[in-house]
């Protein structure tokens, strides 16, 4: 009625592009021929042979006995491994600065799934897409199964003896080049190595550097570490180019904190306000209440102006009225909420970061929303030392170099210089698990074990330790060795790393405790907390009090020792001269994608096929440009452009991106690998060489870039406009102030009534369905709820679901054909933020071009488990049916593949197996996890691997429901809330998804969406924000959404 807001998934939809309309009208885009045909479109010889073969097979099948199957037991069964019963081991994931405490689910000794560890105070059970996908790296076919000597396989002993003699013979510097190491035990091992070889220098760098923050903190507080942020305590959040929900630092941790501050309930009526100043649309920008597009060259000045606004006085370098206005507004909010606000910045410029520290200090945020006494150590890379290493390498003073967990030839801006100089180094060793860009050039490769095969520890933040333990014994025990053990061997130590690790914990971390008990507990929990540096935080009992004055209620960590001593004035003048308010040139912003990150896991097909939360693109990187810039260049999505920075240039396709700053182009890191494996090689372009150095640290931007239209156009593998809901109402949203004034507002605005002779009625009151209420009230009534206010759109659930349910990967071409298989998709809708109420010509003009800076809504959609399911009524073979517990069941072995159900599904959540992904050679590369013996180890044995010609869809993790029920029956108790957790819920870092029994009034789901029952024993949703998708067609979904609330004002 009054809801005139237009939502669209992509420009195609907004402009009613011809291709889009064609695609939307066809349920199944392009009925491409699957069977090979010859030129005249006749049945080919191959088809004839296939049919022949089938006939022969059918005849022999009828004549034969079933094949003999073997049952091979253990010789000596390990006591704690029972076939078919999963074991969980607590361990730690750490890669590229992303720390996550996890539980590894193993079946028959094989790790098959990663779950978040709820005992961790850091990540609190959340995970990310990368953490979820990391289990597949263990079974990567490209892993080396042998030590390498000059590109040839060699035995451990011969390699060791050669390395030892070379190490002893060297008279130059021995460089150990590593990623950030957060393991204190590993550091002790390296120290031991350095003691044995005194010329050793340890350099650490990060593919995506945070050196600016580290150095700024050293200058401001004397602490070389990252601050520990607490977004949950912040009522105003201002982020300048920091995608803290997607890729910036510890985003899993921040997602949980951030959404804690955003959640609304009966008790909690307030939420944080989030300002985002950024170049390209990031995940954080998409969630922000106010988003402003800025150029990379303005970044420093935005911070400077914010500083001036907050502390008062100073000049206003930003000339753009729109940006200046928003900075003023943000500063006002910040000042109003001193001690309850937070300013973060993704810049890698030390001066900018000093200013950010000064702002947070001026706002008295230290000790409340961020802390430096309790620092975070997940990034320690030192760009200056790394630059020095490259100089030394080129200068020839390096005697030996050991690459530990790094691949600088690929992911360091000066990778090419390293590659050239590496030839002249006498001894070069890589611990890489594959022949990658760097290890290829090394004399020796001594492959490190996968983290799931290793012992290790981690010290991510002050007060929190955690352990890594092997969940499987090394798959290649002869061909791989944990890097720490290699160091120990070369230092001549007799100990293995496990002993060193235990020894280190005994003498340092668990000092003064009964060691065996404490160690076993730490190993079991995966985490160990010590209050050594942490003040006791008293949580107030009274929740209302907490909201009004949280800063007073929580006892802050003492700040006396860390008074801000940075030179803010110096930083301010340095920033003012380094940045420009009105650069006339086109600029480049280099960012990370939520899926692939730095590119270290590029050979992981799950991540390659993971639709980027914003662009919904898979299997490629691209140049993101704004619509106006695109028309200026005469390009559209898919056109190729040549991007040149300094001397280097790359050619890649364009995606026209709403929200992109007008005169900028954004390109993601992590692509363009040439030596990572069959799956990741040659996907996209490498943009690391385009990063430069500024003020000693890496600058992920270029202030002058040439973009030129290039030859050709490609089809992009975008999922954004697939499975469209045809513009029917699916998103409900409101602004906080209006919502608080009138909570019924959302219902009034969106509820649909049907006019009848007896007046307007709700669609549910007019039904010809009998309903399932009687059956559902027997025992369980499962339901899922998704809080759109919490969902950040990160997509961890997509990969978790894929892992849990053996969902195949289909590859780029099949994505282009709109045949992706993900059971859960996250629809990303843009809408204009233009005010439709003002009736003026200028306002209408504004509304004409809404793509400039759209609002974004993320809507995860999986099978809605409709009670009046349209799919069920059209299946000719009753392959999809209803359970008495509210599930819409899909029976693969009954399905004959008519696809009627998918045609009739209003939510477009059904996926059809167009191919036999487990056997078809077309998918051998991308789907190695179901086509190779090693890859198959990752499959979940409790879920059927589907074959060609059957339909599939979200089952609400029925295998987990059944397991939870069985456990309860066996233990003679009721199913407790939380016994059954779906894979998507488990993985969610934002706690946006709640699954549970809606019949249980004590369950979280019942409380969250306010369930009561009417006389027919049907569910009534009390919560004003709760709604079902497409309520008007009365399918009565069991998946409930909570409307999105923005905090604009």
């Amino acid at each position, binding site marked *: 009625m009054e809801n005139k807001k237009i939502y669209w998934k992509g420009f195609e939809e907004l402009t009613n592009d011809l291709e889009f309309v064609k695609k939307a009208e066809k349920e199944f885009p392009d009925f491409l021929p699957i069977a090979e045909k010859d030129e005249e479109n006749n049945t080919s010889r191959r088809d004839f042979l296939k049919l022949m073969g089938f006939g022969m097979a059918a005849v022999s*099948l*009828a004549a034969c*006995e*079933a094949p*003999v*199957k*073997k*049952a*091979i*037991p*253990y*010789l*000596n*069964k390990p006591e704690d491994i*029972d*076939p*078919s*019963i999963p074991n969980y081991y607590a361990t730690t994931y750490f890669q590229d600065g992303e720390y996550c405490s996890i539980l590894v689910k193993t079946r028959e000794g094989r790790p098959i799934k990663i779950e978040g560890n709820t005992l961790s105070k850091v990540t609190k059970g959340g995970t990310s897409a990368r953490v979820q996908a990391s289990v597949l790296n263990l079974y990567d076919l490209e892993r080396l199964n042998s030590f390498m000597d000059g590109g040839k396989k060699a035995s451990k002993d011969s390699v060791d003896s050669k390395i030892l003699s070379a190490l002893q013979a060297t008279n130059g510097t021995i460089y150990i080049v590593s990623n950030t190491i957060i393991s204190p035990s590993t550091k002790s091992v390296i120290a031991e190595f350095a003691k044995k070889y005194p010329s050793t220098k340890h350099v650490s760098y990060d593919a995506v550097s945070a050196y600016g923050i580290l150095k700024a903190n050293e200058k401001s507080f004397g602490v070389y570490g990252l601050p520990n942020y607490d977004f949950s305590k912040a009522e105003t959040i201002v982020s300048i180019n920091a995608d803290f929900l997607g890729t910036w630092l510890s985003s899993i941790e921040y997602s949980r904190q951030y959404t804690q501050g955003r959640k609304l309930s009966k008790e909690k009526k307030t939420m944080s306000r989030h300002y985002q100043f950024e170049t390209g649309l990031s995940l954080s920008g998409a969630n922000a209440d106010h988003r402003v597009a800025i150029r990379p060259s303005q970044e420093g000045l935005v911070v400077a102006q914010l500083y001036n606004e907050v502390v008062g006085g100073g000049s206003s370098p930003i000339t753009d009225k729109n940006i200046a206005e928003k900075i003023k507004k943000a500063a006002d909010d910040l000042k109003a909420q001193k001690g309850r606000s937070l300013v973060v910045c993704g810049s890698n410029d030390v001066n900018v970061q000093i200013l950010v520290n000064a702002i947070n200090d001026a706002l008295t945020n230290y000790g409340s929303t961020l802390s430096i006494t309790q620092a975070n150590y997940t990034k320690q890379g030192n760009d200056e030392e790394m630059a020095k290493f490259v100089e030394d390498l080129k200068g020839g003073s390096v005697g030996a170099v050991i690459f530990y967990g790094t691949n600088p030839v690929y992911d360091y801006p000066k990778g090419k210089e390293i590659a050239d100089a590496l030839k002249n180094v006498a001894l070069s060793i890589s611990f890489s698990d594959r022949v990658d860009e760097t290890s290829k050039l090394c004399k020796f490769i001594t492959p490190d074990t996968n983290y799931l095969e290793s012992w290790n520890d981690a010290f991510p933040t002050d007060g929190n330790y955690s352990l890594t333990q092997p969940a499987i014994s090394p798959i290649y025990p002869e061909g791989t060795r944990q890097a720490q053990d290699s160091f120990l061997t070369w230092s001549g130590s007799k100990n293995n790393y496990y002993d060193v690790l235990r020894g280190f914990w005994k003498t340092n971390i668990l000092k003064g405790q009964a060691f065996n008990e404490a160690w076993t507990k730490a190993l079991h929990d995966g985490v160990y907390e010590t209050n050594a540096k942490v003040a006791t935080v008293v949580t107030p009992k009274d929740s209302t009090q907490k909201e009004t004055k949280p800063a007073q209620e929580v006892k802050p960590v003492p700040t006396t020792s860390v008074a801000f001593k940075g030179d803010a004035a110096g930083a301010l003048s340095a920033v003012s001269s380094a940045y420009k308010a009105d650069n006339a040139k086109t600029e480049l912003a280099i960012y990370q994608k939520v899926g692939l990150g730095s590119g270290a896991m590029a050979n992981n097909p799950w991540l390659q096929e993971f639709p980027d939360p914003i662009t919904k693109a898979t299997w490629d990187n691209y140049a993101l440009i704004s619509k106006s810039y695109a028309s200026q260049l005469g390009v559209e999505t898919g056109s190729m452009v040549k991007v040149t920075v300094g001397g280097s240039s790359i050619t890649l396709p364009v995606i026209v991106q709403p929200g992109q700053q007008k005169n900028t182009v954004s390109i993601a890191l992590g692509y363009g690998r040439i030596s990572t494996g069959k799956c990741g090689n040659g996907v996209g372009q490498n943009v690391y060489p385009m990063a430069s150095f500024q003020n000693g640290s890496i600058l992920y931007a270029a202030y002058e870039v040439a973009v030129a239209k290039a030859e050709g156009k490609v089809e992009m593998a975008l999922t954004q406009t697939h499975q469209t809901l045809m513009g029917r109402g699916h998103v409900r949203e409101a602004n906080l102030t209006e919502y608080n004034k009138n909570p019924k507002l959302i219902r009034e605005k969106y509820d649909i009534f049907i006019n009848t002779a007896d007046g307007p009625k709700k669609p549910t009151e007019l039904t010809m369905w009998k309903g399932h209420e009687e059956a559902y*009230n*027997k*025992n369980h009534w499962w339901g899922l709820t998704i809080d759109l206010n919490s969902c950040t759109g990160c997509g961890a659930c997509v990969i978790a679901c894929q892992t849990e349910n053996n969902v195949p990967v289909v590859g780029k071409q099949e994505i282009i054909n709109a045949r992706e298989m993900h059971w859960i998709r996250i629809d990303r809708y843009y809408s204009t933020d233009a005010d439709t109420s003002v009736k003026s010509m200028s306002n209408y003009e504004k509304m004409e071009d809404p793509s400039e800076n759209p609002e974004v809504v993320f809507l995860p959609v999986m099978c809605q488990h409709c009670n009046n399911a349209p799919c069920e009524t059209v299946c000719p073979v009753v392959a999809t*049916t209803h*359970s*008495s*517990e509210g*599930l819409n*069941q*899909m*029976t*693969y*072995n*009954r399905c004959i593949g008519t696809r009627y159900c998918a045609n009739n599904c209003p939510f477009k959540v059904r996926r059809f197996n167009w191919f036999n992904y487990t056997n078809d050679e077309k998918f051998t590369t991308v789907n190695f996890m179901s086509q190779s013996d090693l890859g198959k180890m990752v499959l979940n044995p*409790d*879920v*059927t*691997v589907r074959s060609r010609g059957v339909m599939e869809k979200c*089952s609400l993790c*029925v*295998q987990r429901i*059944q397991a939870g*029920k*069985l456990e*309860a*029956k*066996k233990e*003679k*108790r*009721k*199913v407790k809330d939380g016994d059954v957790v779906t894979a998507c819920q488990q993985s969610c870092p934002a706690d946006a998804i709640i699954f549970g029994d809606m*019949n249980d009034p004590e369950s979280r789901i019942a409380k969250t969406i306010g369930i009561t029952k009417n006389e027919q024993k049907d569910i009534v949703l009390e919560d004003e924000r709760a709604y079902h998708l497409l309520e008007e067609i009365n399918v009565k979904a069991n998946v409930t959404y909570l409307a999105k609330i923005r905090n604009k004002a």
Partner: protein
Amino acid sequence: MRYSSVIQDIRKLAVILAVFVLGMQVAFAQNPTAGKGDVAKGKDLFANNCASCHKIHEPSTGPALTGITARRNEAWLQKWIRNSQSVIKSGDAYAVKLYNDWNQTAMNSFPDLTDGDIKDLLVYIESVPKPEIKKDPQGGGATAGATADSGSTNIILGALVVVLLVILIVLLVLTSLLTRLLKQREDLDEAEKEVVESKFDLGKVLGSKAFLGVLTAIIFLVIAKIGIDKTMDIGMQQGYAPSQPIPFSHKLHIGKYKIACQYCHTTVMKGKSASIPSSNICMNCHNTIKNGSPEIQKIYTAIEKNQPVQWVRVHNLPDLVYFNHSQHTVAGKVACEQCHGKIEEMEVVQQRSPLTMGWCIDCHRQTLVSYTAKDGNGKDVLNPYYEKLLAFHKSKGKTQFKVEDIGGLECSKCHY
């Protein structure tokens, strides 16, 4: 007219009778009994009280019980079962001899059993046929006091057949007599004559369109039925008894030595898989027992070579079905032999049940949900999981419900 119609009527009656007799025999073969409660009750009583020491057809801790009602009268048995020691002390010669013959092993006393209970028990004991005779193609699925009063039913049915046969003969004799009488009369009109002189022309009947039509239909249906049955059998391996790398005898280990199933199949009460025992379980006993045997040596070789024994899998379910042992053994309280048959009598393990979906569904349709659980004192209490389900069924006036009633026939209970 009258007479001939009488003959026709009698003939019709005879045909009906004949069909009935035949039908009776078929019914007789298919439906031996509709069981009485007392046998079933007796069976339960036997299982709960007697089975730990007594078997029906062979001696166990106590003597075999078959023929007990012939050996002793009911009054004596009542006294003996309630308190055997008092009977022995009373100096009863039979009792004393029995006591001494069985190494003076005292039998437990069952003072709580009523006369009725004991009667039920005895009826059950006498109803159990010798195991060789007992055919059990469905792997032991059939329950309900099968053959208890099948004896008496047999007699009644037999008598009925005899009576019907006699009536049939009488009727035939009657018609032939009447026909002969009528033939001697002259005043019959044409129509009546035709009836009287008509002969039962088999050839004509066989040649008739109706008969041929019916015959073709029957043949077609039979072939179709066989065809469908055979197609259904594809991939079905009932009776599959492959030879194993080591001829492990379940008959010896369970039948003779009474080793519990779970001793080797350790996860049968815990998980989806019952698990094939690892070699270290064999070694628990065979490191001392019979370790020189060449078959046992195979296990030693396997351990030395670090290569596990490759058993041949007997029970194969397709990957598309999720079957969980513990669901059935613990939650469902199903005994192993219900699906696996009498393993303790198998020298070579055989797949006794068809393991088809129809077979699963049948059981889910018939089996009552056991919603009780033993509490700390061994008393049956309601398993709280089933609280809501029981309340629901009680509201419908039912105190019992089947697996089917709690969703046991829904697709996603086994397929996901």
